[in-house]
């Protein structure tokens, strides 16, 4: 483009020469609209292609196994027998365990940070906790392998002494297990629960609290009976978001879950998850059916997280307290 003085003059005047291409682009609303519109359309296109690719590339497996894929528990690459059940089981169990441990801790901390802590302390701690959300998952995996598993080995006898009578805590413990994966996932999702729940609780109108306190309620009664019910939907939303994250989490789970495609009642036994099996076996998968089955697992995982994410958004938008 030539920076001629004519660019500076205003566009009035009938005898003005036809503006160059670059000039029209710079002042052309249509051009700006079309370009940005195309970028937005590309996002839709990419997402559409993602679904399409997952669907078409899993066709061999879908054709052969049908819906039985979801309820078959054999995973035998040697004989070309593939079923997703052990992985779905492992994914659901580890995520459920993560929620079981993460919800009380996360919501408890969110209540403390939003309602009880002095604002300065709250801001500083929230800053620290939100940094936890930025830690890459492979680092959680690293710490899981070398820090958490030794700790769990130490407390395993106590755990068994207390809960050993249930089928969930029986059998030998090698360190890598569904339980270890659940604990790592809990640590990973707590920051999400805290930061979103805190925002939701903070946005509860102040007069709700004042009214309760004026009626003689204690600090805790105000928080638990008035504020938390008011913020319930948003807190639920944060939990669903955390769940979606736990379901799709790959690296940390792969490193501590044990990678054994069997369904066992004991949480101390090694297991497997959908994301982990894709991560481990994708590059080794020989044959069309094997790869196709792994891609179908990806499709299952995709569908699962989409549903959970959708529910989370509905809850959070429904609560209208937090703009996602």
């Amino acid at each position, binding site marked *: 483009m030539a920076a001629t003085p004519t660019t500076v003059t205003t566009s009035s005047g009938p005898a003005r020469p036809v503006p160059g291409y670059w000039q029209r682009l710079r002042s052309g609303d249509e051009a700006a609209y079309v370009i940005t519109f195309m*970028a937005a359309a590309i996002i839709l296109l990419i997402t559409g*292609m*993602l679904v399409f690719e997952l669907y078409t590339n899993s066709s061999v497996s879908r054709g052969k196994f049908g819906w039985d894929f979801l309820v078959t528990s054999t995973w035998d690459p040697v004989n070309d027998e593939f079923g997703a059940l052990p992985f779905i089981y492992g994914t659901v169990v580890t995520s459920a365990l993560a929620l079981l441990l993460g919800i009380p801790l996360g919501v408890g901390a969110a209540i403390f940070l939003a309602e009880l802590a002095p604002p300065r302390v709250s801001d500083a701690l929230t800053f620290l906790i939100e940094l936890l959300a930025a830690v890459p998952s492979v680092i959680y995996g690293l710490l899981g392998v070398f820090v958490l598993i030794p700790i769990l080995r130490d407390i395993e006898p106590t755990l068994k002494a207390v809960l050993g009578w249930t089928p969930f805590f029986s059998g030998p413990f090698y360190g890598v297990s569904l339980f270890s994966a659940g604990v790592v996932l809990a640590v990973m999702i707590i920051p999400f629960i805290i930061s979103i729940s805190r925002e939701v609780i903070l946005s509860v109108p102040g007069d709700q609290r004042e009214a309760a306190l004026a009626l003689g309620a204690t600090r805790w009664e105000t928080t638990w009976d008035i504020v938390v019910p008011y913020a319930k939907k948003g807190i639920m939303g944060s939990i669903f978001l955390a769940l979606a994250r736990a379901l799709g989490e790959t690296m940390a789970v792969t490193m501590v879950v044990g990678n054994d495609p069997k369904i066992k009642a004991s949480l101390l036994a090694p297991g497997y998850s959908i994301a982990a099996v894709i991560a481990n076996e994708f590059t080794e998968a020989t044959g069309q059916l094997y790869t196709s089955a792994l891609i179908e697992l990806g499709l299952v995982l995709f569908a699962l*997280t989409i549903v959970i994410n959708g529910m989370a958004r509905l809850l959070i938008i429904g609560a209208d307290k937090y703009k996602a």
Partner: protein
Amino acid sequence: MVNLHTLRRKTVNIVMLTITGLCTLFAAGTLVYILGYLFVHGATSLTWDFFTKLPTPVGEPGGGMANAIVGSGKLLLLASLFGIPIGFLGGVYLAEFGGSTFSFVVRYVTDLLNGVPSIVIGIFAYTMVVLPQKHFSTLAGGLALGVMMIPIAVRSTEEFLRAVPNSLREGAMALGASKARSILTVVIPAAKNGIMTGIMLNLARVAGETAPLLFTSFGNRYWSSGWEQPISALPVMIFTYAIAPYEDWHKQAWAAGFVLLTLVLTVNIIARAVLSKGRHVAR
């Protein structure tokens, strides 16, 4: 009786407040513990060779991850070239031209894409690039990370453009600027800091992604030239080295973890400082 009742309520109050405090302490304590542990193990395992040398064969001590550091850089560059323009322009569309059903759909789909597990994005890049080319490549890894960058780029751009007061747009238009010109010369420069910070945070996030790289860029124990060969990346190296049964590799994994975490957290802390500063000015 009344006193007993009051006493009970007060006790519950104190006990529950303490419990929530302990929850917070646990969450914050985890970070301190993680940082402390990584710092001790990582910093002590870190040598100058880590930044300058190639990985050594199994059993041979020493060596570094120079190729993985450069590899991560190359992958991030590709990811930025792919993800940022689409994300940024999409964000501009939503903030400045949006308002219709189409924007609602775009926003919804963007959130959906943001929620897709990273391993599934990896499969997508595999089917798009690796399958047709029949080999792992830097290109495929860059595409995977680029797709992951899009949703956050869109949302942060939209958010910061929306934060620009309307009076600036009106002022520009009152002076005769077209809408496009006012966006280009007034609105975007006003939101520049926020958008740049958003991009930095976005990069820090994908820099730690491992899962989408496992079967796209795959990994490489040597230097990778060009964009068509498999390439090593820091997070993938951490994974490979951590699950290997060699003591020496574990030390390398700690060193790599330390470097990666330091980078990610530094970017996050700076970004947050910039953002909170901007917010104060806006008030």
